[in-house]
């Protein structure tokens, strides 16, 4: 296959697709289009090492000019794509340029869900390098921090802010953090983690209003309490960057719809990977969209393989995997704990260092997922078991025996 491969979106999904295309033997040009003018960088460190100050910006880089040159990848950074025309087979950029493609890969990812609260200043979202820099700058202000959202990013930000020695409160309308993903009992362990590290929580209560400006904000909760804050960070989820495809005729429904082989439905030679792709997962028998780093990497490999070997396409049917570093816990979530009807806790969540696994099973007695902290060997074992469709009881026995 040749012609030009135009990859839109220059973060982990796009970069890994471009690299994998070369590795698979793509002979034609590869153009990597990115909205931001930064060299491609990675997102997970933004709420971890970069916030804590243990990594600098170059360490987050996914691709520099030398590496791009080695793989003959042309970078078109600093201008977003604004449309794709499947009939003329071209991607249009904001500056009016039109890039003809032989194959196009959509990897525009997702954006932080916008804050419904708009104080004059001092409120931050965290998605990109510019957001991270602005937040770090603002955290130099003295005074407490309020984090709205108790999910992965909210919890990581709270941990990072605590490590800087500042007072933090995490607010979330759900009664326990990540309860929808891992259930109330396991979620409550993460509430305890916040408290052990001196972070205050206001769970089960929403935010009514945020007023004021950087340095003197007020977060009014739905139960009437008012939390003063120098800085507010809002981490309430992500939305796919698919609006630029609105006039393309491509099927967009909270993400770009794809088949199991990462091909966008109803068009020729257009693929999608990463946070923006809603694809048919053969293992789950339905369309899913996954906002995890490892999924973007694996889907990039799959799409690149299928582009170069269109006659023998592979399905993308991964076991979900996401990690989150919170305080002294390295949490790993495997598969789909949220679809479970039962779970079992193995190990000791209260030990220091903590080492435990929560295994989840469905009505049919299958292992559907797991949450682990501080137990890499068991994590690896469960990732393999989940891929093989192991019975819940077998998994409980095997992990129990590793204790």
């Amino acid at each position: 296959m040749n012609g030009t491969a135009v990859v839109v979106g220059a973060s982990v999904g796009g970069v890994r697709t471009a690299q994998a295309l070369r590795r698979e033997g793509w002979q034609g040009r590869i153009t990597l289009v990115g909205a931001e003018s930064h060299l491609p960088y990675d997102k997970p460190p933004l709420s971890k090492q970069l916030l804590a100050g243990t990594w600098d910006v170059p360490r987050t880089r996914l691709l520099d000019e030398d590496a791009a040159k080695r793989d003959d990848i042309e970078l078109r950074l600093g201008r977003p794509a604004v449309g794709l025309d499947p009939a003329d087979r071209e991607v249009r950029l904001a500056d009016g340029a039109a890039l003809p493609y032989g194959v196009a890969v959509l990897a525009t990812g997702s954006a932080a869900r916008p804050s419904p609260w708009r104080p004059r200043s001092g409120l931050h979202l965290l998605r990109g390098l510019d957001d991270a820099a602005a937040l770090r700058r603002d955290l130099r202000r003295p005074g407490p921090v309020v984090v709205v959202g108790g999910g992965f990013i909210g919890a990581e930000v709270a941990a990072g802010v605590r490590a800087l020695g500042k007072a933090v409160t995490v607010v979330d309308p759900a009664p326990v953090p990540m309860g929808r993903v891992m259930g109330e009992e396991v979620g409550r362990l993460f509430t305890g983690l916040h408290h052990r590290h001196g972070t205050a929580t206001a769970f089960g209560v929403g935010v009514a209003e945020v007023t004021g400006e950087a340095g003197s904000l007020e977060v009014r909760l739905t139960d009437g309490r008012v939390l003063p804050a120098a800085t507010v960070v809002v981490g309430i989820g992500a939305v796919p960057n698919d609006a630029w495809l609105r006039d393309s005729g491509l099927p967009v429904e909270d993400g770009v719809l794809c088949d199991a082989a990462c091909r966008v439905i109803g068009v020729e030679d257009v693929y999608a990977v990463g946070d923006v792709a809603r694809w048919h997962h053969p293992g789950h028998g339905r369309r899913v969209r996954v906002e995890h780093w490892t999924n973007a990497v694996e889907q990039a490999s799959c799409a690149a393989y299928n582009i170069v070997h269109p006659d023998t396409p592979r399905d993308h049917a991964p076991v979900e995997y996401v990690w989150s570093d919170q305080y002294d816990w390295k949490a790993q979530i495997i598969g789909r704990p949220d679809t479970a009807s039962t779970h079992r806790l193995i190990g000791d969540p209260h030990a220091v260092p903590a080492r435990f696994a929560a295994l989840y099973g469905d009505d049919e007695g299958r292992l559907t997922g797991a949450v682990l902290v501080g137990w890499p060997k068991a994590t690896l074992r469960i990732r393999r078991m989940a891929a093989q469709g192991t019975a819940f009881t077998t998994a409980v026995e095997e992990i129990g025996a590793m204790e």
Partner: protein
Amino acid sequence: MLGLIADLNACQGYANCVIAAPDTYDIDDDGLVVLLRARIPGEDRARVEEAARSCPVSALTIEER
């Protein structure tokens, strides 16, 4: 031949590399990557390199020897 280098200070035990190429990478009880072979024949390059690029903290590098 290709040489394989692991940065044990960077490794966080995520085991993505082990999932992608179990004949080349493993992890020990502390969750540190173990290289099962340090020299990689050319025909395995693509797979081993793909596995290295699946490391979230870029702890694995491959170089020509």
